[in-house]
């Protein structure tokens, strides 16, 4: 079985997605590295700035090898947004560097350009890498973009696979570990590639909103709202954006089932969405747009009437 090489690049990020990745359990980072079961064996993490042993030239040499196609098949995981270096060049500078070659600094965007030519799969870990995240927040001083817009929505890898986005600020560790394991199994034809939604998120993880996944959604349906932080009801009046953000953390929890933003009683801030951290997700403590609630209430009334009617009807099963 051929080894699969993973290069993890960090651009305008905060390393939070790396830290979050180490929160994963099934599989864990260690599982992925040791190859927890035969078809998932042989995943080599060739480059990851935060955990690798070598530094300086020896570290950068790995990226050069990857760019020359020596690491094949190559999975590139990107963490952090990609700035527009043309604006920094106007004053002779740079926004973000990624090592050097023959004494010349290499910008992060150049690194992404070169590696994306060789990659079998490009995975955007977290909202910055997917859609730009906070660096691209208004007024976007560095012209930051996510991989999806940077490479273009029609971009395809050498194997014909589009950019896979696993958003979240930070990425949910389990989402990323599952998608990477899934990708490895897909490359080896054990599983099909995951289906993606229009924002290139895996549908099976991001189909439902945080509100739909929220343990407090039943309380909302029952008309129970929290008016102060600390109360155990729906936080819709306290700024929760769960109804307009796609996320399963309220159901799944954040680390081994513990946590989940709305689960513990804090408002969802929409960190998995392309517009984050701008409107309509911020101000974070302002109420979500009303239109959603009107539509939802109409659906809710329809659903309730249907449920009542089906209970009145004669049992048919």
């Amino acid at each position, binding site marked *: 079985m051929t080894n699969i090489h993973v290069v993890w690049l960090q651009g305008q990020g905060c390393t939070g997605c790396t830290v979050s990745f180490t929160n994963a359990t099934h599989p864990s980072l260690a599982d992925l590295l040791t190859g927890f079961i035969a078809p998932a064996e042989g995943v080599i993490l060739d480059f990851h700035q935060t955990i690798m042993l070598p530094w300086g030239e020896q*570290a950068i040499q790995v990226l050069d090898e990857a760019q020359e196609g020596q690491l094949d098949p190559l999975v590139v995981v990107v963490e952090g*947004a990609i700035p527009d270096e043309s604006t920094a060049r106007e004053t002779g500078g740079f926004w973000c560097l990624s090592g050097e070659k023959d004494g010349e600094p290499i910008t992060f965007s150049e690194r992404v350009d070169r590696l994306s030519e060789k990659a079998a799969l490009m995975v955007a870990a977290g909202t910055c890498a997917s859609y730009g995240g906070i660096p691209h927040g208004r007024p976007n001083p560095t012209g930051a973009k996510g991989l999806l817009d940077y490479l273009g929505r029609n971009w395809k890898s050498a194997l014909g696979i589009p950019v896979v986005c696993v958003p979240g600020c930070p990425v949910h560790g389990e989402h990323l570990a599952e998608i990477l394991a899934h990708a490895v199994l897909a490359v080896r034809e054990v599983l099909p590639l995951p289906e993606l939604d229009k924002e290139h998120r895996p549908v099976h993880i991001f189909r439902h909103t945080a509100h739909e996944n929220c343990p407090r959604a039943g309380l909302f349906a029952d008309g129970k709202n929290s008016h102060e932080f600390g109360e155990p009801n729906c936080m819709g009046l306290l700024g929760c954006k769960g109804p307009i953000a796609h996320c399963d953390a309220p159901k799944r929890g*954040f680390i081994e089932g513990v946590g989940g933003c709305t689960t513990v009683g*804090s408002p969802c801030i929409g960190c998995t969405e392309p517009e984050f951290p701008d409107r309509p997700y911020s101000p974070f403590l302002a109420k979500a747009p009303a239109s959603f609630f009107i539509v939802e209430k109409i659906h809710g009334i329809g659903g309730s009437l249907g449920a009542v009617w089906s209970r009145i009807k004669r049992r048919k099963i």
Partner: protein
Amino acid sequence: MANKEIVIEPVTRLEGHYGIHADADLTAKRYVDAHSYVTMFRGWEIILKRREPADAIWITQRICGVCPYPHALASVEAVDMVYNAPPPPMGILLRDLMHGAEQLYDAVLGCFVLEGPDYSQQIVEKSNPEWWEEAKKTKAPNSEFHGYQTIAEIMTALNPLTGSLWLRSLGLAKLGRKMAALLGGKHPHVNTLVPGGVAMTLTPSDLEQYIAMLSQHIAFSKEFIPLFDDLCDFILSMGYEDSGERPMNLLSYGAYEDPSAYTAKYEDMTNWGLKRKISPGVVVKGELITRDLVEISVGVREFVNHSYYTEWTSPELEEDPLGNPLASEHPWNKETQPEPGPPRDWKSKYSWATSPRWQHWKKNGEIHVLEAGPISRLWITALSGNGSESTGKSLRFTLPRATIVGYPVADEFTFEWKIPEKVNTIERVRARAYYHAYSAYASLSQLLQATELIKKGQTKVWNKYKKPKHGVGVGMVEAMRGALAHWVVMKKKKIHKYQIITPSGWNAGPRGPNGELGPYEEAIVGTPVTEPSPEEELLGVDVVRVVRSFDPCLACCVHLYTGDKNVRQIDII
């Protein structure tokens, strides 16, 4: 023999984008010059402008995913102040419990994953073969606690990806973050801090789960600290005490509130600062010159002489709310705009990090280069005589019995961190390890106060507030890596200015206004070259050890804010 120059970029196993340039004198076997530079910029404080002040609590955490929580805490205290929104006691304690959880995780991450590998068999055998030979023969004095018979066994266990300590540390670091997620919804980037308290529905089972997880960290501390004592003592015995040495000029903002003292009012800040379990303070030349948070905040200066920003002009605020004078370099006054420049122009601007300094404004006006970090806060707390733990020369505290399967040391254990003779590479690493035990101790103390409140029925976690139109705020806390503060100026209910100076900002900054070196640079100069054949190939292992001893978090130290005028210019860029 001539000098040899080395440029290391990227420096790996740290947070962020970082490079170091150093000159080694191969005859004297010492490093004689250094330049520390950060190679990434995102523009955080521009992005914050004109947003709701409260949004900064979420946005500023995303400066750094390794140490997000202290940003949330500094930000929420700044916003508490500007909104006049003091939290109820349980809200204050829950914030501290999340803080403790993050420190527990971060100490483990720093010691085992980021810095530990520099002392692992894989590195030492190659870079310091004579250490390795000696390590194989040297018995580990504390093996009864941690189980490793020789120093070489400890070094092997620190090998990345394969070593038993490295692998075990991943689980313990995760457990610390899980404790934070229990109360914070998630970690990195906790979601529950709001002005006036916390946004969580507290139940007694949350505290029960917290203590069950904390007990594992308490048990682990009893292996972790003896183990690092053995490792640190061994490396020092190999003649490494000059590595990373710099003057005893230290800074701490303090941590762990007394819930009855914290009022979120600037005029009370001196008082609540003094009641923190970890003391605020400034040490100059080994002497504690102040513990007053207001005096410390007013003395902060930020310079950009060697950073990719242009200078600003006149101050907007001449006095703080108590009438103390504010310099134009004070963060409440600073006006900065980015101007990307060429890399490695040592004579001019060479880093995205700035040069924070502290001015002894009440006395002689002298400007000092201060170091932030676990060593600084333990040092200052030990000198302070603050609480029963502080002896004036050391910090002594006891962790209770904790009997857990898989952890060999169950019994009560007394730790004593003694003020070392030098501030150097190894003592920084040792202090980080000890801060794990202290964090467990402080978290337990805050937790017991929280259970007392539950017994009394005082379970309110949040107070309503009425947001004023204008105001200023400051939040000063200890992140794992040291002193972290956020300063906010609110106008018409929106952020007018938001400024952050992080611990890695204090430590990693380039040369200052008078050409004086930043702390990393100071620490590298004078460090011995211990590699076996630097004439053939200089790897720079001693340089990266110095840098990593500060546990750099570089995304943290790069951000800026601008005045209204400057934003337009940003658009043009």
